[in-house]
């Protein structure tokens, strides 16, 4: 039950912090980290599967 919440919590946490620490690759990492909640919401919440 907690596997996905923990994964998404940690990745978005990494996303929040990485762009603060550096530019370039760290920005890209933060887009992916913070993008995961949106991807999951679209996959499960807003698709008709």
């Amino acid at each position, binding site marked *: *039950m*907690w*596997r*996905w*919440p923990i994964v*998404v*919590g*940690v990745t*978005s*946490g990494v996303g*929040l912090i990485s*762009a*603060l*620490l*550096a*530019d370039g690759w*760290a*920005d890209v990492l*933060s*887009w992916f980290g*913070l*993008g*995961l*909640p*949106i991807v*999951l*919401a679209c*996959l*499960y*919440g807003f698709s*008709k599967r």
Partner: protein
Amino acid sequence: MSVSALRYWVWLHKWSSLVCTVFMLLLCVTGLPLIFNHEIQHWIHDDLAPKEMSANTPKASVDRVLAAALAAEPGQVVQFVVADPDDERVWVATLAATTTAEKNQHSIMIDSRTAEVIGKPKFDEGFMHVMLQLHVSMFAGMAGTLFLGAMGLLLVVAIVSGVVLYAPFMQKLAFGTVRREHSSRTKWLDLHNLLGIVTLTWALAVGMTGVINTLGQPLLKLWQYTEVVDMVAPYKNLPPPTTFGSLQAAVTAAQETEPTMSVFFIAFPGTAFSSMHHYAIFMRGNTPLTKRLFKPILVDAQTSKVTDSRAMPWYMTALFVSQPLHFGDYGGMPMKIIWALLDVMTIMVLCSGLYLWFKKRKLPAVDRALTSRLETAK
């Protein structure tokens, strides 16, 4: 979890959310355009752009920039000069009738290479000003800001209690289950849980940094009344100077003190950020994090000699670090778009929460708090 514990958490989640939801909706809706504030301001003030010149054009003396600002607003005094954080070709000077005036301030954009006035942007009117004021204080000054901070604390309580409730509500369901074939209330309960849990880290970060930001003014005052007073103490009993030395010499002295940092903000003698005797020159670093951390350097306004410089205390550092985490302006346009989408998802969590509460009120009053749990256990 025991039934009484569950009841307690349901009660806590319901009331912490209900009290803050309307204000959180206001913050989410007004925050949406504010994410793109920089782009929208550029679009509104598209006539206020610096001239295209070769990239290595040297900068003009700040003394000329100062003279241009004073000539553009006769009879006014300069309070601050700020380097545009996104465009090093631009200085923005703030002028008013006196050094301490907090109203009727005028902004003037000046080209940092030619010292020519680019224009006079109006930051205190229009749609974005209304959005900002609603977001920061609901037009209610310091009281409004602190009230929104208290609502932000309630949001944190609502999020934490929501996470506690996630387990009993989801224990029989696979992650992301949305029971569309059930009642509309069940479907929205599932969506509320899904959107709530995936936005958890972001919403907590934005919520808590928002609360820290509401303390910005009090923290600034604390810093002024302790550290700044201490830094200018040697000048306490001296009469205010009548003539001032070169601003460029003061800036050069500050730059020599911190050669790896850049000038961000200059507070003029007599303003709230300085003393009667000093230019307070705030330097900032050059990495995504350190460019948001400022270090004040006090320069004697007559002799252009550095008299004191010290790192900001921990609470000001906490305030400065919390700002990008609230604004989402530190990872380019993709991050702003992600910030906006997460904001919209939060609006859906808030609205679905309201809807669930409203629907539950209409259920028979047997034990509303446990209905959903029973539904899940079926």
